[in-house]
């Protein structure tokens, strides 16, 4: 659509529906936020569309956008009731207001605590690591909206018991090898560079990398900062069994001074001093190296690596693709798709005081984040799944993470609301269900989160598992029962609509309505028909993705 046509449409009064900002990608789109940075982001993204001669997809309708922002920010789908209210709301600024509402919700804290716990230590908790204490540290940090550089400082520099100082569990999780081995701090070195700096340095442990600007000496210089730590595991005597049980672990200082030595592929021994980019620290025993490094990374933020890595990671969280692919490989060998935009966002993030909620607010209020995920004939090349550079001319579909899926099933089946019947009554059963979901859906931390990689056991769990079975049982307390016994849903179309809204977060089209009513009329028992419909909705591809 060119500008002339658009202007014409405005003149012709088509703009009159603008109270609901779901009209189509155009210059006038706004979520209601007046932050000038958002206009800048929109311009930068639009420039990419122009340069690549593509047309963006239209703005997503309210239902599509609401489900997306709920999943991304709060970690679960909206309930049917929330959706109904949002669609009715005539406020032109309702989208920006909703972002603020979600940022103040406990779901935000829970969602990002989960995200960061998984990122820092993986879904499978390493040995002698206190996952609960790390979660508590993160939960409190996100609830207070502590600046990201302060949180990072704690994760990189903390010492102490793993139950008293939850932040130490990040590094404890990386210390799984023989403390006498030179490899002991390698995992901590490599993962810290990836997470906090967005740099992949692990290959340079053994050799200069042909595609990486980091040289082998830089790896060992960075590594030398992590040499002054080790884990100490404490055991306690168990009088009942007569054996020693695990008690607690702690991260402690380890005496270490001087340089480290490493070997090149040619067999040459070389020396490396504690040095982070241009910052060199004294190599004596008195220097608290890890603290010095943490200060350089988080307080000085030398070369803005910490801020840039976080901006890219969060952009990737919301769009399934960051400005680089993967998000944590931002070295000079891997140029960003939108370098100017990335730099500006990095600067603004620093200026904001590393304000995580502000970063989310910027992203969720952009035009790009508000577009539909449908391709159109003019932006088919914008498909990062085929290895193309992302242009953000439509939303990219994200498969739900296991935690999002589980939380969403609770919402869609109202199993989490008070007095919802037998399922809620049994906390044990709920814990067991969650474990099964984590085990079957959470297996591989190595999977690309932007690509759907479902398995047969996952499909079996969804088709035949207890959670969906309970939700579709029609028993008193089940979601299906609450819909069928609700006097305001007497007719089939109303009931079908309610089930669609709960599961898929949208209203069924008239052809979907017609088609389903046709199928359901084949059933001799109407309850069976509704059970099967809700079963099919919860098992569908549309349910399990964040569109």
């Amino acid at each position, binding site marked *: 659509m060119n500008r002339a046509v658009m202007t014409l449409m405005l003149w012709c009064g088509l703009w009159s529906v603008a109270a609901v900002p779901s009209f189509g990608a155009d210059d006038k789109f706004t979520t209601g936020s007046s932050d000038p940075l958002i206009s800048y982001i929109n311009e930068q993204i639009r420039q990419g569309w122009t340069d690549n001669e593509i047309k963006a997809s239209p703005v997503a309708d309210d239902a599509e956008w609401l489900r997306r922002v709920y999943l991304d920010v709060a970690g679960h789908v909206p309930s049917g009731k929330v959706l109904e209210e949002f669609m009715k709301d005539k406020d032109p600024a309702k989208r920006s207001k909703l972002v603020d509402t979600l940022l103040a919700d406990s779901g935000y804290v829970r969602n990002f605590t989960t995200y960061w716990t998984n990122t820092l230590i993986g879904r499978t908790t390493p040995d002698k690591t206190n996952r609960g204490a790390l979660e508590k540290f993160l939960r409190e940090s996100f609830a207070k909206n502590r600046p990201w550089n302060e949180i990072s400082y704690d994760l990189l520099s903390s010492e102490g018991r793993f139950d008293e100082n939850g932040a130490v569990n990040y590094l404890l999780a990386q210390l799984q090898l023989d403390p006498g081995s030179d490899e002991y701090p390698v995992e901590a070195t*490599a993962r810290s560079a990836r997470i906090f700096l967005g740099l992949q340095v692990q290959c340079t442990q053994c050799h200069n990398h042909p595609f990486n600007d980091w040289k082998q000496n830089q790896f060992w210089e960075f590594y030398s900062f992590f040499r002054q730590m080790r884990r100490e595991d404490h055991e306690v005597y168990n009088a009942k069994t007569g054996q020693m049980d695990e008690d607690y672990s702690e991260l402690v200082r380890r005496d270490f001074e001087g340089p480290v030595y490493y070997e090149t592929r040619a067999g040459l021994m070389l020396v490396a001093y504690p040095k982070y980019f241009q910052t060199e620290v004294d190599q004596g025993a008195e220097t608290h190296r890890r603290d010095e490094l943490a200060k350089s990374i988080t307080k000085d933020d030398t070369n803005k690596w910490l801020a840039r890595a976080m901006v890219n990671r969060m952009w990737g969280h919301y769009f399934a693709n960051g400005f680089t692919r993967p998000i944590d490989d931002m070295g000079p060998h891997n140029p960003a798709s939108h370098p100017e935009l990335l730099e500006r966002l990095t600067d603004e993030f620093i200026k904001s005081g590393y304000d995580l909620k502000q970063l989310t607010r910027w992203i969720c209020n952009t035009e790009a984040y508000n577009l539909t995920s449908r391709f159109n004939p003019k932006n088919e090349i914008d498909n990062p799944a085929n290895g193309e550079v992302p242009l953000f001319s439509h939303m*990219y579909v994200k498969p739900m993470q296991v935690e999002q899926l589980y939380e969403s099933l609770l919402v869609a089946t109202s199993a989490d609301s008070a007095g919802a019947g037998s399922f809620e009554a049994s906390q044990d059963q709920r814990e067991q269900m969650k474990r099964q979901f984590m085990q079957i859906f959470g297996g591989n931390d*190595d*999977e690309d989160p932007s690509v*759907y990689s479902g398995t047969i056991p996952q499909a079996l769990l969804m*088709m035949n598992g207890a959670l969906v079975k309970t939700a579709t049982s029609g028993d008193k307390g089940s979601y299906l029962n609450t819909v069928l016994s609700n006097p305001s849903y007497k007719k089939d179309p109303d009931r079908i609509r309610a089930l669609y809204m709960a599961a898929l977060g949208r209203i069924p089209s008239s052809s979907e309505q017609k088609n389903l009513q046709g199928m359901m009329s084949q059933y001799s028992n109407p309850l069976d028909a509704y059970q099967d419909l809700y079963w099919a909705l919860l098992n569908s591809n549309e349910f399990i993705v964040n569109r």
Partner: protein
Amino acid sequence: MFNQGMSRRHFMSHAAMGGAAVLGANEFLNHLHLNAAEVKKNQKACILVWLGGGAPTIDMWDLKPGSKNGGEFKPISTAGDLQISEHLPEVAKQMDALSVVRSMSTREADHMRGAYFMHSGYVPNPTVVHPTFGSVVSYELGAKRKELEIPSFVSIGGGGMSPGFLGMSHAPFSVNAQGQIQNADMAGVDPARLGARLSMLQSIEDGFIKSDRGDAGQAHKDVYGKAVNLMRSEQMKAFKVSEESPETLASYGGPGFGASMLMARRLVEVGVPFIEVNFPGGWDLHNDVFNTLKNQRLPILDKGIAGLTADLKQRGMIDDVVVICMGEFSRTPRINQNVGRDHWATSWSVMIGGGGLKGGRAIGETNADGDKVVSESYLPGDIWATAAYALRIPLDTVHTSKRGRPMKIAGGGVPIKGLIS
């Protein structure tokens, strides 16, 4: 040819009297058997018997009588050209088909790292998750077996390792020792009802696929297609060991490990190329090693491996099915103060046979005290390269990690000469 009103039973009774029809049925059955035989001939498979915790191979495959490390057990002669433990008497009778590599030296003596190394041929590395070899076989052979309706990598009685960069579709499919698959039954829903549900699902899924939002919708539909095929497949019977006669089960040593081994054979018969059988009960024998071995672990292992080997021979399958028995490492030759043995990866044994590999041989050698390899030593990659050779997976196969790094199959290992010529 059918008269209206002629019941099926009526037709069958006529048909049964007609000689031609009977002959036809026989021909059909013969044809089926021939086909099955043909399929079996081409279908290579590997059964890994996993001894989690690390089994003391010095008490099993490479005994050291006369050494201070020798322990309580005596070696006995076998049907092959080597001696093994007196507590593996049934396996001894089958050793013409099985060999022992006695010079493994694998350096990883931590449970997790050792299990990773032995399963994948690669030492753990923070940059990449390497696939367990079952996933490699699933990737290389399973995808080509169009008639296979159940997963091509089954792990019995344990979790199994990661498919790594080969992706979750090659992850081990776990069943317990009873062959039960979690959530495989849609209890209380009859086939007609399932059909109705699935057509409703299909209509919703197709609608989403048509909405043009990328590949996830179709990928999801494909996985569900496979899951439904599995729920409805005749091949699911392979998991039902209860269909076997009590005598057959007894020849494998009975319920538990024996049933798992029998299930492995049934899975091979329907075309599953890789099965991992986890031995129930650990081998991390820091205490009281000899009593535990002779009273508990070894009699069960003995019957399971011997039963499987004899059965594979009798069915003409032994030259197509590689059988490997190992754990993440072995145990110290030195006996500790608790009459146990600790972790040891420096010099130990792996049992491997079948699949056309040479049987009855001892490959490599350790010294008189068993704490040093005194011949060429081998790595897990060499075991897997040997298996790949037997399974006809080309050894120059290279996979690509998520970060675009080329990865040689079996960690770049080389088939062990003494097993292939």
